[in-house]
């Protein structure tokens, strides 16, 4: 039986403590009162009745005694007088003497014997209908002469009873008041605190706020209860915090597990990639060895043949040609690998130019047609409509088409290969689409998925049968992506394949590129004002090898050097005496007059003595060079970065003034440190106003590095001011700010500045890279305007 569950508790268990307490107090008091009243009443009752009987008996006997003579002498009058004496007792209602069954005398007079029948015969006292009766014999000489009857009412008892009730009512009222006081007191000191505690506990348990504490008012059991409740809560709070810590720990563990899973997945991927790479390298090694085998074999054979007398020149020529073709195959393989690794490292550059689609197609077909023919394939070209000029990287597109076509031709034997070209317009804008369809062996669904993956070959057996390394498509897809396009394939085994490459007619970013060119074009006028020879470092290169001149021209011209060429020692000396140079780069090994002689001559003439000379040669004779007065030494072959760092020391100093405007000392120091070993002259200003003043004084500032939030004049105001001065308006600005810019602010800012760099988020490389790019652009612009 579930009678103990909360709802099924009997009502008395459910009533509040207060009600219970009050009702039990009242109940108890009432009970005591009731018992007192009942017992007292009973007691009084008994006492009264006994007394009443006794009194009546005595009165009866007295009256009977007194009336003996009257009865004896038949004197009814005196008998009546005697009876009249009972008048003194108000409760006597009737007195009567019966003689021989007749009323002899009566009080009050006049009453008849009627009703006397009801009187019980015999002696004694009895109660009848709220009246006591007594009957006493009147005895004369042992003879019963008559009988005396008395009737008394219970009026006296009623009075006593009334008084009793009054007393009890008074007591009851007093008791109630007392109970009220007591229960109020109890309520104040026990029930109220308890129920308050209970409400509070309910709230706490509902809100689960285990940090709440009950207030202790008394030092009694309730106080103790409060104490122990608080202790309990503290315990709970502790457990709760442990629980929440546990939860945090659990989430942490879960998160860690997720990370772990990710790491494992990453590791697996890396392992798979590694595996693919190893597999690829093994294949690569195989592919490289095959042509090498031919190259080495034929070469050795040729060595043999050459020592023989009977030398067949025609046969020899054929063998040499084989070596050459094997070598070329090897080269193309190596190039493919290089391309792929460049693409993977994100180092593949695009060279975008305008070209004609028809020319491209003719070009590719010219190469592929002989291959198609040799495999008995018919080649069809279908150009749909006018394709027009394409702005993209023609070399990459040519390579893609060549790869697709050579695959089609390779995997098709005595079939049909179609090249379709069309200009289409879709969601991505104007596109060119080349589609290569063949009727060859086709590709299985499974192989289609891995086809384009670098380092993953489609089908080992196919590759073995048809040669190749599986790089063609990987490279092609990467190129297509770089050009903003894609390659898709549809194929059915045994029926043939269709590879479709699609890319924008105008490569994305081309607009900006051309716009930039225009902008630099506009800048010409402004930059012309700058004193050009002063800015560029004049370098005299004395070398008999034209290739070196070309390379240096290419590598250095963008970095602020003007290269003056001398093809021999003599010419070099002549130029050195006629013109002024900042630095001379000198080759040692030259015909007629070698570098040592030139160096000696240069160092012995007053005019050229102080010009720094950098030796540039394959002879690692450093000491001799220094002894003869050379300032620096470079050993061939030289990397561009080595060249630049060596030559930097001989550049015209302070050619690149950079103005840094920032109120934050920390930033000033940081930028200073970053640019310390660069060839820049850093001028610092603490606010926009100061920056403007400096611009007026310092001529030829190349770049402004600008903070935005500054006192006196902030970055935005500074930009506004600068735009008002035509002579400064063209100075490129790099914003370096910690300010969080909205997109709108950003685009507004970029209308007047070159670059926005976020403070604290840029590296030295980034800063220098940005500066160099801008300086490079300026130089380019100047060069163009100069030529």
């Amino acid at each position, binding site marked *: 039986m579930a009678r103990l569950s909360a709802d099924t508790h009997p009502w008395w268990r459910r009533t509040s403590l207060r009600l219970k307490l009050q009702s039990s107090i009242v109940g108890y008091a009432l009970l005591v009162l009731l018992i007192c009243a009942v017992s007292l009443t009973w007691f009084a009752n008994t006492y009264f009745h006994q007394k009443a009987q006794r009194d009546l008996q005595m009165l009866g006997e007295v009256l009977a005694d007194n009336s003996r003579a009257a009865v004896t002498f038949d004197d009814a009058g005196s008998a009546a007088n005697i009876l009249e004496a009972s008048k003194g007792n108000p409760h006597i209602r009737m007195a009567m003497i019966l003689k021989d069954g007749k009323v002899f005398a009566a009080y009050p007079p006049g009453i008849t014997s009627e009703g006397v029948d009801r009187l019980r015969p015999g002696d004694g006292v009895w109660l009848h209908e709220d009246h006591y009766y007594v009957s006493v014999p009147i005895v004369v000489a042992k003879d019963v002469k008559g009988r005396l009857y008395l009737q008394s009412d219970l009026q006296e008892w009623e009075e006593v009873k009334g008084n009793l009730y009054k007393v009890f009512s008074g007591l009851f009222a007093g008791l109630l008041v007392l109970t009220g006081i007591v229960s109020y007191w109890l309520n104040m000191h026990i029930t109220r605190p308890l129920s308050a505690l209970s409400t509070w506990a309910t709230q706490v348990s509902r809100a689960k706020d285990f940090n709440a504490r009950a207030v202790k008012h008394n030092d009694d059991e309730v106080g103790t209860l409060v104490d122990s409740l608080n202790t309990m809560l503290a315990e709970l709070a502790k457990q709760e915090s442990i629980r929440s810590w546990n939860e945090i720990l659990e989430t942490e563990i879960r998160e860690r597990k997720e990370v772990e899973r990710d790491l494992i997945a990453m590791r697996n991927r890396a392992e798979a990639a590694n595996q693919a790479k190893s597999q690829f390298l093994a294949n690569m*090694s195989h592919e490289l*060895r*095959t042509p*090498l*085998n*031919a*190259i080495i*074999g034929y070469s050795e054979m040729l060595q043999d043949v050459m020592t023989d007398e009977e030398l067949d020149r025609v046969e020899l020529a054929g063998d040499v040609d*084989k070596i050459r073709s094997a070598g070329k195959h090897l080269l193309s393989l190596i190039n493919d690998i290089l391309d792929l690794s460049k693409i993977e490292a994100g180092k593949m550059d695009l060279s975008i130019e305008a070209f004609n689609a028809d020319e491209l197609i003719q070009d590719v077909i010219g190469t592929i047609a002989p291959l198609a023919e040799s495999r008995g394939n018919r080649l069809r070209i279908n150009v749909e409509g006018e394709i027009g000029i394409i702005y993209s990287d023609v070399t990459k597109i040519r390579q893609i088409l060549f790869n697709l076509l050579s695959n089609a031709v390779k995997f098709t034997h005595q079939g049909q290969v179609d090249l379709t070209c069309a200009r289409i317009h879709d969601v991505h804008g104007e596109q060119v689409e080349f589609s290569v369809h063949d009727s060859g062996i086709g590709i299985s669904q499974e192989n289609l998925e891995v086809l384009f993956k670098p380092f993953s070959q489609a089908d080992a057996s196919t590759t073995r*049968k048809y040669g190749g390394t599986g790089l063609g498509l990987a490279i092609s897809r990467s190129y297509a992506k770089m050009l903003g396009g894609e390659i898709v394939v549809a194929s059915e085994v045994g029926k043939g394949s269709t590879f479709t490459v699609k890319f924008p007619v105008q490569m994305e970013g081309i607009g900006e590129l051309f716009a930039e060119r225009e902008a630099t074009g506009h800048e010409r006028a402004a930059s012309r004002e700058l004193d050009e020879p002063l800015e560029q470092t004049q370098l005299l290169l004395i070398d008999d090898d034209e290739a070196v001149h070309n390379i240096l021209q290419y590598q250095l011209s963008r970095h602020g050097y003007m290269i003056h060429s001398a093809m021999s020692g003599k010419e070099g000396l002549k130029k050195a005496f006629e013109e002024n140079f900042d630095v001379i780069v000198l080759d040692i090994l030259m015909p007629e007059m070698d570098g040592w002689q030139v160096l000696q001559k240069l160092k012995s003439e007053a005019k050229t003595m102080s010009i720094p000379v950098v030796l540039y040669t394959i002879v690692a004779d450093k000491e001799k060079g220094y002894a003869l007065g050379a300032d620096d030494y470079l050993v061939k072959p030289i990397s561009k970065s080595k060249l630049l760092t060596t030559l930097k020391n001989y550049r015209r100093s302070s050619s690149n003034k950079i103005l840094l405007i920032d109120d934050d000392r920390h930033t000033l120091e940081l930028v200073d440190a970053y640019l310390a070993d660069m060839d820049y002259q850093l001028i610092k200003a603490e606010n926009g106003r100061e920056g403007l003043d400096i611009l007026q004084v310092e001529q030829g500032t190349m770049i402004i590095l600008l903070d935005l939030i500054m006192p006196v004049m902030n970055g935005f105001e500074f930009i506004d001011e600068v735009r008002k001065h035509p002579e400064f308006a063209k100075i490129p600005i790099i914003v370096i700010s910690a300010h969080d810019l909205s997109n709108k602010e950003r685009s507004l800012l970029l209308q007047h500045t070159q670059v926005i760099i976020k403070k604290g988020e840029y590296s030295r490389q980034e800063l220098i890279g940005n500066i160099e790019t801008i300086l490079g652009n300026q130089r380019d612009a100047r060069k163009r305007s100069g030529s």
Partner: protein
Amino acid sequence: MALLLVVEDNEMNADMLIRRLNRKGFETAWAINGVQALEMLEKLKPALILMDLSLPEMDGYQATRIIKSGPLRHIPVIALTAHALLEDQQKALTAGCDDYETKPINFPQLLGKIHNHLGEAYDNSE
């Protein structure tokens, strides 16, 4: 002199090898894949086989396994392959090849191996 069967799918490499062997006085025959090699083996009964391993139709491993389980199993097979890893070599030997030479071929070394195996083969057959 002894007849050598060259099994090689790369025309240039086959041409080169055959001509070099001819110059050393060997007679040669050329098979372009495993299937052809097995056919020619029956007809020509060469003294030794130079077997490229990656071949179309039937590769060198399979051809070697067939040869080594047939009546002509005494004919030595020297594997010639551009696979350069140790495990490739192991694979060749497991297939039943008697010797192994990695491309690009070290010709004098190959000649040494051929003479070695021919000597042994004659010794065994006589």
